């Protein structure tokens, strides 16, 4: 990110090659001085510098040609000198790409003027919005973390202790272990802002921790088996799937609800924009609970046995369920049948997770395979073989995949890149069998729940560096949280809108348009949008064909000369006739003719 910005800055700040030298700035003088100093020391550096400059120049020109940014002509500054940086600064293409929503609209042929204008206007406006958003990227305060090894040093061999020592104290304190051997193994969940952590031991231990300050908010033992635990929309409430029923507690640990409609729940997912808690039970039921009104929205019998593998697609709120026969099914609350069923593994599916953009799904199965799918096209991308098979999977905001095999947690980078991954980015061994894995949002932290308690790992580059405070703000005050809650409830998305494509609502509904048009035609008795039937033009027959025209032309050609010619021809003919008549007379005459009576 930093490198990219620097690059653009350079591009923007270099004048054209054949133009006058830009106005001298105070820092340039010092640079030149430095250069001259270097020149005296070593001649080669200066040449290198100029070469560098020239390449930059060419780069600038190319962006000028290709870039869509219009430049002001003759950017004059008041005192008569030319503006060295005329017009708007160009925006790199990748940044613009990031904010592109859909493709551009083409004006349909034969569209009315109004429609044309409306389309052109909306295109202009959206382009402006895109540019402004892309420009704002420069102001984002934080950069993502990273971890790079030295030469012949694998990043996966770097231990957590070394990382914790190398980074600052605050970050270093994010690597810690909680020894909880009594009630394990542990499942965990981070709140949406990433400030609060929920831990639940299989044997009934439930704890809420503000994990950065290590502040224990509440700790209870529900005296029952706990299957899963999830935060609801705020830090004030969480849901616990216990042995029999589903319970909802507040942040003090006080039981608010016991939802008896939801029994034997094994896995839960919370859909934050819909305020829906989706649960999968041992009896094969997938149930949806609207937590804002406390109503069950749908109960779907999946008819595929015990459901203990579940994940949500954060892009479209579709629930993915993994089954023991190796299939993964996609569900929405509006349909009793799965939206999609795909066969992913030879054996049972052990774990699955979906990435933030809703493009990729990663599954692991009993066949010890780890598979990456493109769920827009429902096609497998890569298949990896893990010696022990992954029991838990989790994807971070930046797309790092963590997989737990036994007591080892491995983190992979670029799992859906063009080439398959050969070795992990990081690895860490915890003290017990891993039971739960989750990345902390907006932090470079991976939480691991295992048989002996909880481990918080540092995974550089996992979290999104810049949050949007109107959506999720880790630093929000109580007042801000209240305001956010009201706003979020007001724009709660209705469960009817859950489907594979969340942008469906913004598209033209062709089917119902056709239906409406048909009805209209029925009412009117004719089709108002129909094109006029093609009627061949009734030409005057043969009159306007090319041949006839040519003939007609010929008829009137050389009209003025014709009379003269005709006269000449007539005279000639006459002469010839006379001659021929004379000859005929000569030929006819015989010797006896002289005795004929002369007619005079």
């Amino acid at each position: 990110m930093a490198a990219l910005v620097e690059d653009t800055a350079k591009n923007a700040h270099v004048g054209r090659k054949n133009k006058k030298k830009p106005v001298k700035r105070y820092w340039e003088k010092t640079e030149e001085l430095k250069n001259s100093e270097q020149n005296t020391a070593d001649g080669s550096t200066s040449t290198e510098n100029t070469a560098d400059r020239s390449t930059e120049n060419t780069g600038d020109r190319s962006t000028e040609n290709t870039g869509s940014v219009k430049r002001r002509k003759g950017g004059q500054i008041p005192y008569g000198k030319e503006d060295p940086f005329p017009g708007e600064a160009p925006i790199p293409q990748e940044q613009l790409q990031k904010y592109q929503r859909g493709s551009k609209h083409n004006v349909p042929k034969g569209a009315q003027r109004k429609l044309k204008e409306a389309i052109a206007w909306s295109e202009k406006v959206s382009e402006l919005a895109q540019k402004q958003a892309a420009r704002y990227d420069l102001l984002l305060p934080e950069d993502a973390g990273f971890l790079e090894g030295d030469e012949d040093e694998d990043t996966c061999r770097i231990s957590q202790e070394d990382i914790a020592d190398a980074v600052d104290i605050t970050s270093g304190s994010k690597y810690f272990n909680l020894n909880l051997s009594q009630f394990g193994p542990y499942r965990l969940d981070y709140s949406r802002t990433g400030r609060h952590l929920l831990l639940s031991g299989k044997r009934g231990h439930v704890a809420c921790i503000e994990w950065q300050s290590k502040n224990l908010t509440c700790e209870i033992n529900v005296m029952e088996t706990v299957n899963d635990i999830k935060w609801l929309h705020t830090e004030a409430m969480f849901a616990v799937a216990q042995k029999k029923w589903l319970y909802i507690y507040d942040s003090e640990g006080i039981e608010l609800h016991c939802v008896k409609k939801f029994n034997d729940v094994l896995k839960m997912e919370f859909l934050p924009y819909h305020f829906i808690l989706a649960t999968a039970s041992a009896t094969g039921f997938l149930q949806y609970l609207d937590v804002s009104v406390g109503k069950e929205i749908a109960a779907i019998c999946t008819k595929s046995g015990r459901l203990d593998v579940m994940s949500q697609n954060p892009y479209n709120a579709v629930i993915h369920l993994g089954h023991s026969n190796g299939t993964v099914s996609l569900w929405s609350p509006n349909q009793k049948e799965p939206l999609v069923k795909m066969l992913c593994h030879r054996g049972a599916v052990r774990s699955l997770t979906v990435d933030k953009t809703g493009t990729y799904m990663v599954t692991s199965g009993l066949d010890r395979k780890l598979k990456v799918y493109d769920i827009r096209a429902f096609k497998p991308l890569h298949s990896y073989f893990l010696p022990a098979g992954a029991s838990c999977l989790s994807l971070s905001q930046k797309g790092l995949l963590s997989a737990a095999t036994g007591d080892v947690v491995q983190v992979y980078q670029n799992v859906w890149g063009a080439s398959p991954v050969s070795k992990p980015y990081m690895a860490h061994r915890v003290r017990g069998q891993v039971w739960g894995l989750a990345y902390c949002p907006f932090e470079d932290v991976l939480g691991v729940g295992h048989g002996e308690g909880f481990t918080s790992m540092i995974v550089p580059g996992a979290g999104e560096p810049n949050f949007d405070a109107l959506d999720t703000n880790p630093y929000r005050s109580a007042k801000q949280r209240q305001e956010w809650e009201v706003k979020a409830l007001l724009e709660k998305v209705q469960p009817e809108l859950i489907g594979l494509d969340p942008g469906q609502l913004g598209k033209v509904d062709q089917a119902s348009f056709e239906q409406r048009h048909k009805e209209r035609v029925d009412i009117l008795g004719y089709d108002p949008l129909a094109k006029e039937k093609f009627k061949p033009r009734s030409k005057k027959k043969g009159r306007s064909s090319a041949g006839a025209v040519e003939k007609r032309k010929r008829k009137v050609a050389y009209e003025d000369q014709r009379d003269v010619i005709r006269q000449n021809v007539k005279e000639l003919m006459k002469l010839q006739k006379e001659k021929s008549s004379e000859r005929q007379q000569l030929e006819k005459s015989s010797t006896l003719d002289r005795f004929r009576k002369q007619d005079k």
Partner: protein
Amino acid sequence: MKVKVLCRNPDDYVRETTRDIQRVPRNYDPKLHPFEVPREYTRALNATKLERVFAKPFVASLDGHRDGISCIAKHAKSLSTVLSGACDGEVKVWNLPRRECVRTIQAHEGFVRGICSRFCGTSFFTVGDDKTIKQWNMEPPGYGVQEEPINTILGKAVVTGVDHHQREAMFATCGQTVDIYDEQRSSPIRSFSWGVDSFSCVRYNPVETDLLASCASDRSVVLYDMRESTPLRKVVMQLRSNTLCWNPMEAYYFTCSNEDSNLYTYDMRYLKCPVTVHVDHVSAVLDVDYSPTGREFVSASFDKTIRIFPKDKGRSREVYHTKRMQHVICVKWSADNKYVLSGSDEMNIRLWKANASEKLGVMSSREKTAANYNKKLMEKFQHHPQVKRIARHRHVPRDVLKQKRQQTEMKEARRRKEQNVRKHSKPGSVPLVPEKEKHVVAVVE
């Protein structure tokens, strides 16, 4: 080993003091904002509902007249002053912000037929059933001094309407003929007539200031040029037009309110067929006035409602009515584009908001942004059935609703009959006549 881990300094994200405002760092990355369309749709739906909740258009009622209001006029310069004339010959001058009558004149005997302010706003003209045209000073007379007109012209016939020239000291009246008066003279400098008929309304064109249009009782709308001695052209419709109003921004368009409960927008240059037919009233439309932006107009009808139409739409976007409001005789759109004034039979002038759900008074910038955002959202999702249903729904009086149903049924029957006739006659012998062309009888040059 090179390593960097995300570590934020809380000082950059939390406000410094409690008196400070909260910091709100933004990131517009679409990846961080899933469900863009469904959330926007929900917002649009909420905005539409709230718009209907806050739609309280009635602002005030000005009472004081002792007979039905026959005409209203805007002051040419002052937003807060309105003049009104009643059927008993009384003229009142109102102060709108204080909502009170500041002056009462017994101007005529019988109806006050027309009233108009001079372009400079120093005086106004009234015409009445007593065949007089009177000019009054806008300033009230001193204490103890009797109300006297500046000037009185005694006409030969009843005068039914008056309108003042935009720039010059001339005005036009209509009655048996359309007369152009110079303010300095007592007899008309020009007099137009076309056949024997009477005129109900005359209006100067606001841009081409020498042009005039008038509605005649022989079902025609006649155009004049003041510089010529004969009228320009006229269009004859199936029923009589009551009033007309020029579009102040595109002054080649005018809209006339018709007895057949429709309004017709014409292009002055092409009278053969109206540009738009505005339907929605169920009874004769009595008055029409354009907004100063020229994008909308308001119409008053005999069916006890007033409606607001976008200039290029066939259907109204808004309907105003109250239980007490009777036949609405006259209507005006205020010059600041915010209010509508209606005068009705039951002696009241009512002040309405032009935009029913608009908040009156000063708005903070955040309020303004929110309002603009909501407006844009509603526009974006206006075609979605849920949003459309809520945005379109209006409560109308029972008899209007009934008549509306009846009229649709009648129209449907007529259409069906025509379709059947067409089906059973020689192809092409019963042509499809567009709705627009049905209402024009003839154009006479």
